[in-house]
């Protein structure tokens, strides 16, 4: 039903981007299906609204009628004949051994230029789906990945046939058509191929149905390892408690700190950290308090996508429906998705796992006029981000994780506490 809700979602999304009210939590009034004219008239653009919920059964016939009408509407909608026009029918052929040159060409060359992960080819590609899916070889056939083929089969767009090598039927023989593959057989053949788990397929197909373009990321292969892990190198990204450097600046600094605290009462060993002396302003007090090292995501080096801990590894690159896609040169992804099966990975990631995952994504610092103005927004956006798709027995929850870097946002400075020369410069209106 996701498609029917889109209009309502779009209408609300512009008003309140942060408020996360999930419309799928609401009830559905299936009687609205009867008013839908998409069954008969595909050009209509209006979509139905949600109904109201009865919280408990009551003895009125009215409620019983509503229920019966809803059921009827649902059966009606489901029972509507779905016609596949032979003109738009797309035929794919299963290639269990991966990409190979066409059999009728008795060529010696082995290479088709297509990665061995592809396992279904479409000799005559047509329709919009091949804009973002598949890969063409030298003979103008389009090869599909197992999840792409599966998605198209489930959609009813693609008919898949057993290959002639297995059935012994010549596929070019017009009189004897190739044997079609059942959807069960397609599941059996395609899922589990080249690292395609059911969880990954669920995520892929869910996003595809919403209109996203989805591709496999370099971290797709669980067994791929990087030669040398640089687990240790990013320890440098942690700030160290401030220490006064040598040289003139250090001397002046020491001098000032002596003036602040002439009797040496400030001690981090036994406290008080800020000392008992004179504080010129609260910002100085806060600066003295900074003794806990924190992680600076901007200082961390980006690591190899394979230098991560499975399953916390980006497996899908996702693009919004509006993004122009060129299959030969994919743009930088808008979202990076790691897929987690909760029945295998039962606990949430450790710091090492989630840290490595985020460090494998490129730096994406908060930029723009709005971000500069709103500190909360900067914090929420973070410096690197990734989406975790947590699949629990078929139910997917997407979680966006970002490196927040609270340490880079000194609240005491942002507040407009007078801090030296910037007394009038840095004042900005308080967020209400």
């Amino acid at each position, binding site marked *: 039903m996701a498609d029917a809700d889109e209009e309502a979602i779009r209408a609300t999304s512009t008003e309140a981007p942060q408020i996360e*009210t999930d419309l799928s939590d609401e009830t559905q009034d299936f009687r609205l299906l009867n008013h839908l004219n998409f069954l008969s008239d595909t050009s209509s653009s209006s979509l139905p609204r949600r109904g109201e919920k009865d919280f408990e059964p009551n003895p009125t016939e*009215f409620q019983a009628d509503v229920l019966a009408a809803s059921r009827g509407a649902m059966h009606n909608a489901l029972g509507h004949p779905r016609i596949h026009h032979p003109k738009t029918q797309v035929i794919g052929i299963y290639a269990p051994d991966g990409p190979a040159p066409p059999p009728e060409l008795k060529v010696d060359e082995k290479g088709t230029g297509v990665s061995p992960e592809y396992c279904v080819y479409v000799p005559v590609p047509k329709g919009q789906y091949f804009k973002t899916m598949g890969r063409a070889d030298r003979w103008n056939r389009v090869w599909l990945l197992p999840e792409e083929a599966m998605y198209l089969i489930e959609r009813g767009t693609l008919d898949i046939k057993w290959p002639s090598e297995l059935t012994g039927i010549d596929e070019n023989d017009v009189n004897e058509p190739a044997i079609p593959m059942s959807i069960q057989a397609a599941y059996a053949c395609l899922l589990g191929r080249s690292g395609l788990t059911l969880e990954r397929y669920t995520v892929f197909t869910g996003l595809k149905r919403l209109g996203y373009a989805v591709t496999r990321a370099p971290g797709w292969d669980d067994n791929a390892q990087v030669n040398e892990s640089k687990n240790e190198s990013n320890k440098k990204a942690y700030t160290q408690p401030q220490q006064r450097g040598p040289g003139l600046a250090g001397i002046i600094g020491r001098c000032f700190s002596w003036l602040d605290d002439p009797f040496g009462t400030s001690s*981090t060993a*036994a*406290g008080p950290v800020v000392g008992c002396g004179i504080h010129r302003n609260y910002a100085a007090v806060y600066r003295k308090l900074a003794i806990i090292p924190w992680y600076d995501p901007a200082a961390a080096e980006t690591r190899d996508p394979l230098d991560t801990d499975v399953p916390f590894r980006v497996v899908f690159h996702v693009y919004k429906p*509006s993004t122009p896609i060129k299959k030969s040169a994919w743009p930088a992804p808008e979202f990076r998705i790691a897929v987690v099966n909760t029945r295998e990975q039962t606990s949430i990631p450790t710091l090492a796992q989630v840290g490595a995952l985020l460090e494998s994504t490129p730096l994406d610092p908060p930029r723009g006029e709005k971000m500069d103005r709103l500190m909360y927004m900067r914090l929420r956006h973070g410096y690197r981000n990734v989406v975790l798709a947590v699949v629990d027995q078929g139910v997917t929850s997407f*979680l966006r994780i970002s*490196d927040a870097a609270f340490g880079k946002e000194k609240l005491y400075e942002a507040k407009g506490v007078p801090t030296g020369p910037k007394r009038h410069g840095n004042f900005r209106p308080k967020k209400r």
Partner: protein
Amino acid sequence: MDTTSPQPKAGPRGKRGARPGRPNYRHIHRHPLPVNVLSVPPVIPHNPLSIISVALSYLTFLISPPRQEVYSAYFDSATSSIHVTDERAIKALWEMGFFGKGTLSRSEPSWLEREKKRRGLLGGSTSEEATRKRRTERRELKLERARVEKLAIEERLKAEAAAKESGDVLPAAEGHTIPGEKFSVKKAMEARYRQSRSQTTPNGDASTPADSPATPNGKSVRFSPVVQEKEVVSSSAASLHLPDSVLDEEEADEAPLENEEHLQVSNEEAFFLVYSLGVLQVYDREENKPIPTSSLFPLLCNHSYFPPRTASAELKPDDPFTMSYVVYHHFRSLGWVVRSGVKFGTDYLLYNRGPVFSHAEFAVIIIPSYSHSYWSETEERREYTTSQQARSWWWLHCVNRVQAQVKKSLVLCYVEVPPPSASSDDIGALLGRYRVREFLLRRWIPNRSRD
């Protein structure tokens, strides 16, 4: 989703600022921390006189250093908690940095004020009263909604029975449901608020919008058994106050009102005030002696377990107190007002400036991390760290959903635990071995992210 979901930042409450009786929080809470700050005249390079004035001010500080007030609190080992009983200290700690919680109040110690108002000694209303009133109103409206719905069903039943008798056919259920729009508690709240405002403003008496009772609306209608039962429960809760308030009024003449409330500061807050700011002195309750900072730290560490560990026990690097203190100190040092997040199922809430100014924007959860090679050296340690780090996905989803509902952003704060150290004498060095990394977690809704 009900229409009555809490809307912390909107709704009738948002207009509270217009009420004239509101105290000047900006002035009351002008000090973010309870330490003295003396501004020094600025140095202007081209004006040599300014240097003299700066030097003079430093000189006066040197000759007669301003005294930093040190407040006192006592540690109660039976409850592992720290209490402040001195009136002045309570006021100072609350006003400058929002430390602690009144033992008889929601947060700000306001029991005495509430009690006075209840006995009619003071005018106005406290925040607790406002909340209670709002909750009562909401409950009433919910009952009203239940009643309206019940009535509609009864009417429908009657109509159906009549139709059966006469053999008519009722309008089909195909169209739309019960006539009129559904009873919305939120809308009713707003209507009631508007009504109370229009009632009070013409009289020029805007200070008592709380006193205008808009409650008696049609109590004579017969409720269904279910609704009636609910009504009994709610009214009995309300009437609980009646008898003792009568009693108190009689007593009020005899005994002068004493403040029975004190401030409880959390162990992290207390240690921050002692160790970081040096403005608090914690006394042992039994011996009535001040506890030095060096022994306060192990004491609080041992008391972060239940039952408390003995003083001779070796300090663990990942005991609950150290972990939460590291996070507390980290966010405090960045200028956040950190308060307990227990009511939203998190470890901390981060307020900008303080709870009286705005709602908390971030809710923090502390998760330990054991990346150091020490922790993976033996099988036993590996097992221990795995169990310490394990949190289920369902737990995470629960917490995340709650935060989304109350419009807070969830912060996962991982604390890197160092291997055990030989000594804990240098607290600063000890704390400096911990490392903090924050992640923001948010639900990502594909439906909404497509643009």
